[in-house]
């Protein structure tokens, strides 16, 4: 049985010459792992996910997916492309860009139909996923008439119907209310039981700590600076301060004042020092 889904060796990416978005990333993602890529805004999390999904390609280094090199040339081969797309699903940060069909039913069916699955099978998947994610009443509605939280659910559902082995999630908790965040954590837990690999990019340490069994930290200079279990990484307070994932500021309590470390994200408690949730 294959033990790793992705292997990155010295991967770097520049959108413009001289402006790195990622630098010299060495990373191996095991089959069935739940990995959270954490870092401040602009650290390269989304770029890393796009590289894992074959949407952008390394300017330097190499990436291997499921044992084969993942390159632009390889993805031009229809058989490879179909196989790769059926194995990897990507939920974008902004749900609006992912909802381009005329109604929710077609949105959920888009991926499986593109993969050439029989229509009966696609209908079964759409009904099943809509039932699981509570979307039955939305199936005939156009995406633009949905609320932000509903759009996010539909965006996630549109990838779930593809039954991909690997799920890439870019800021999955964004636009979700507290109840929907709990729902998301339940979904992630179910995927874990099913043995699916999840790679999520987030700067919400509470979601990362709760849902991932491995944390990868990107610094503001786009390099990988830490890789370990959530307990190991979140215990490195100085590191988290240095990469701008938590910050300190002074609180006044009646006559006394003292400094606290803060992480961003609802209910965050990053380093056992003192965490505050910020909306």
């Amino acid at each position: 049985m294959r033990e790793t889904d992705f292997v990155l060796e010295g991967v770097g990416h520049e959108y413009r010459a001289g402006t790195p978005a990622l630098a010299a990333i060495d990373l191996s993602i095991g089959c069935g792992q739940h990995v959270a890529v954490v870092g401040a805004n602009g650290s390269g999390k989304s770029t890393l996910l796009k590289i894992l999904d074959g949407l952008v390609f390394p300017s330097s280094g190499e990436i291997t997916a499921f044992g084969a090199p993942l390159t632009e040339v390889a993805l031009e081969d229809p058989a490879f492309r179909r196989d790769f797309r059926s194995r990897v699903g990507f939920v974008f940060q902004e749900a609006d860009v992912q909802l381009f069909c005329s109604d929710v039913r077609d949105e959920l069916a888009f991926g499986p139909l593109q993969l050439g699955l029989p229509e009966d099978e696609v209908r079964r998947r759409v009904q099943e996923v809509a039932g699981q994610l509570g979307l039955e009443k939305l199936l005939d509605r156009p995406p633009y008439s949905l609320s932000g939280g509903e759009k996010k659910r539909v965006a996630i559902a549109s990838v779930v119907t593809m039954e991909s082995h690997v799920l890439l999630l870019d800021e999955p908790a964004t636009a979700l209310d507290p109840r929907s965040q709990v729902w998301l954590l339940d979904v992630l837990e179910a995927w874990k039981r099913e043995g699916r690999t999840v790679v999520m990019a987030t700067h919400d340490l509470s979601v990362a700590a709760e849902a991932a069994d491995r944390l990868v930290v990107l610094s503001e200079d786009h390099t990988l600076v830490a890789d370990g279990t959530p307990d190991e990484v979140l215990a490195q307070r100085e590191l988290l301060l240095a990469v701008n994932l938590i910050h300190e500021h002074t609180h006044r309590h009646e006559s006394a004042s003292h400094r606290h470390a803060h992480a961003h994200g609802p209910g965050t408690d990053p380093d056992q020092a003192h965490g505050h949730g910020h909306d």
Partner: protein
Amino acid sequence: MSAPCPCCQADIAPAVHRRGGGRSLARKTADSVGHAVTDVLQNEELAARPGLLQGLDPRVKLLTLLLFAVAASLVHSVWLLVALIALTMALAAASLVGVGSFARRVWASAGLLAFLVALPSALSWFTPGQVVVSLGPLSFTEPGLMGVATLVARVAAAAGFAILVIWTMRWTDLLRALSAMHMPDVVVATLAMTHRQILTLLRTVEQIHLARESRTLTRGTTRENRAWVTERMAFVMRKSMKTADDVYDAMLSRGFTGAMPSLVRLRTRPRDWMWAAASVALCVAIVIADRAVGP
């Protein structure tokens, strides 16, 4: 009511009800954009009503209303054109879309525009004939005014059928109808994404203007307002291009192969065939009658 700023003594006017009760540029633009979004959502509601046209197969409805619009463009008799306009009103009533608002939409957009464009052609300088109306140096002739009336009636009739298509058909059904009529996938996909993009960008523009409105203390000069609007237009254009790239990436990520398949299958029922047959017969009869009576 305005009050002096406590620190600089500048006059701080509320963002609305300035200068004789006029609204700010930001507020007016935000309201207009909000109305545009509301219109789209209202169309969805109209298309869901249990009316005559809403019950037809989208393909049949699209083709037959298009046929009526073509017939209107072939007809020269004003009276037959008036009959076609009356038909659009009757269809609007039978489709429960509100005859008053339907007539306002037709005449306020297409009818008025056609009238303003065609009116100069009725002047005696361009169309000789018996002068029936004189306004100072401007003289309007009978054949000229008949020509204007014909053109306005033709445009109003055609626009009426087009608006009936839009008001009685969900956008999703329109796209499916186009797809079923073998419109290339790339065209249907582009239309679908354009519609989505426009709505998303409308909301962005509305938020931009509301954000400005919430921070506006003074009116600003026309030049400043113009510069701000231009800069925001550039921002929206950049955002639009970035969103288009992201949407394409999202499609590729889910295995986009160039086709836009759908799970929904359109079905034609006996009443669709009856409607289609009646529409074709009526259009043929109208064109024949027009040829018989002459212009």
